[in-house]
């Protein structure tokens, strides 16, 4: 038979255990970002371009009939050059490399920027074929971000290239 003191001791320890579990199950609060901050997520997954060459009729003639593709394209994809400027200041510069053992996979980037909510000038420049100079995709826009808003910078060739959402 348990003594009253032992019962009280057990109750105290069980309640302390529950209090410990209950407190750390939700507390202390965690602040991921300050109240007046918004996020820009730069996330691009894109196959770099490649330099294709048109085969001459003589070359095609030498190939078996079932392999006479008119274009001769290398397997490897180009690196992709990417620049992001925010409010006229360089925010991010990178060269994305193709994935895969033969460098024939997509090039990807994922980057998160925290910035004060409000109006910002965002410029994104991308070149997916480094054989050619300059940038073949440019997106420039004045965006207004609310606190805690997440804006995504993405790329989709079917949607005209770079876009914000």
């Amino acid at each position, binding site marked *: 038979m348990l003594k009253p*003191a*032992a*019962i*009280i*001791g*057990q109750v105290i*320890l*069980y*309640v302390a*255990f*529950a209090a*410990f*579990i*209950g407190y*750390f*199950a*939700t*507390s*202390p*609060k*965690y*602040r*991921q*970002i*300050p*109240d007046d*901050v*918004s*996020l820009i*997520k730069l*996330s691009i*997954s894109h196959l770099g371009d490649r330099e294709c060459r048109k085969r001459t009729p003589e070359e095609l003639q030498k190939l078996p009939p079932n392999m006479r593709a008119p274009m001769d394209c290398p397997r490897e994809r180009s690196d992709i050059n990417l620049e992001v400027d925010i409010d006229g200041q360089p925010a991010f510069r990178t060269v994305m490399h193709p*994935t*895969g053992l033969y460098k024939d*996979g*997509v090039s*990807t*980037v*994922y980057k*998160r920027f925290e910035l004060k909510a409000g109006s910002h000038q965002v410029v994104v420049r991308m070149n997916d074929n480094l054989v050619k100079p300059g940038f073949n995709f440019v997106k420039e826009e004045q965006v207004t971000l609310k*606190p*805690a*808003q*997440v804006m*995504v910078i*993405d790329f989709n060739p079917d949607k005209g290239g770079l876009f914000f*959402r």
Partner: protein
Amino acid sequence: MSFHGFARSNTQVLFQRIEEAFDVPFGGANNPLRHLGAMGLYLLWIVVGTGLYLYTVLDISITGVYDSIGYQSLELWYFGGIMRSLHRYASDAFVLVMVLHLIREWAYGRYFGFRFYSWITGVPLIWLVYASGIGGYWIVWDQVAQFSATATTELLDWLPIFSEPAARNFLAPDSINDRFFTMLVFIHIGIPLLLILGLWAHVHRISMVDYLPSRQSMLGTASVLVLLALVKPALSAPPANLALAPAELRLDWFILFIHPLTDISSPAIVWTLLFAVTVLLTILPFLPHAKAEPVALVDVAYCSGCSRCHLDCPYAAITMGPHPIRSGFKVAVVDPDLCASCGICAGSCPSSTPFRRQEQLLTGIDMPQQTVNGLRQHLEDALAKLEGRSRIVIFSCDRGADAGALAAPDTAVMSLMCTGILPPSFVEYALRGGADGVMLTGCRSGGCDFRFGDRWTAERIAGQREPRLRSKVPLARLQLVSASSNDGKVLAKALQEFRTRIETQSVSDAPLPPYFRRTSHHA
């Protein structure tokens, strides 16, 4: 002493002190700190049971998961809400118990030698627990889920395992669909199943596993968790919206602590830390340790195949195999990799009785470092030297309170590897050899280093387990004392009281007839 040894011994002292403080209100059998493994399994069954209920009421769609679980918490708070809260709080308690179990086993040095397998199989379980716990938080698809999903995938993306960033799956509200939750539920059921399979492997080399703690512990734990569920029910945060980043969150720090840790450091640091801890835990058993004690040896000529050692071995190190000579008979076979060198098997062997008249007492199973013959010889020598009004023999466990200081002309101290090595017939042998009383000291209840040494001894003395102490032995002349290494004073006090009892109270039981092995017992 190395830093590791220093840290371990100090942690052990701390743990032992806290455990012994918990013994005061709980007692050994109900002390949760002494049964952390069983407590963990019990909490896991609560998680599994409540999880099955939540699965049946979960509507697997983007808005459905949030609404269906929210309905349980808000509308069916008296049942569904409690089930949900129990699911969460039992998970948190499981994590807490798991961490304590890990630290305790390390502190007590229970991770190398014959315990190597249990330790190594426990390491991957930690990963499974966290994978399961983190995934579980995603299912509700509230702001905490959104934060955890994004943070986890960003952390995973640091590893070169995905061709595309996994975090792209949580970029915008239209990035996910209903099928995501189907997959999530599938994973959240699959990983715990793997966990249960892993737990089976974890305890595979232990016999008579405590799958559940005592009834009182279960009742107390369940009651307090239900109380917590009523006082502070588990609720969802506002629904997830990938177009917004929640600024302030109420995180479950037991399971989701890794996300803030990543935020204040970096994915590289967190992965380095995680892999470093995993590697450290894995290589820990391979670090230099004290040389293993010799294992139990079977003497086929004296093994009757009775299976008592097989039944009593706490680590399933003994199996019964065919006798090499006598067909149809069995003989004990010791697996050296599993043997803990505790000697409990020698104490269980019916051939270990000291009353046998052979000069060289050979028994069926014996410990080379403390043979039954050596024990008898030591006892006979000690009995011959005893003098005084009340001559007491103390059989003391090396792992419990140090009885050496109590040795005196009227008190002989016999040191044992574990109390369980002592066949009960030694008690009678000591009393019939001239002792007025016998004191048996072992670890505190639930604190035996070899799991069952104290329990088997108590049951053998009480006549509840073979080999039994003969009923004609007067129990008034026998004293069992549970005393840990910190209980030296308790032991001294118990001896004093025992001596006083023998000297002042006339022990009514008729004294046992003397027995001297070397003289004819018919004389």
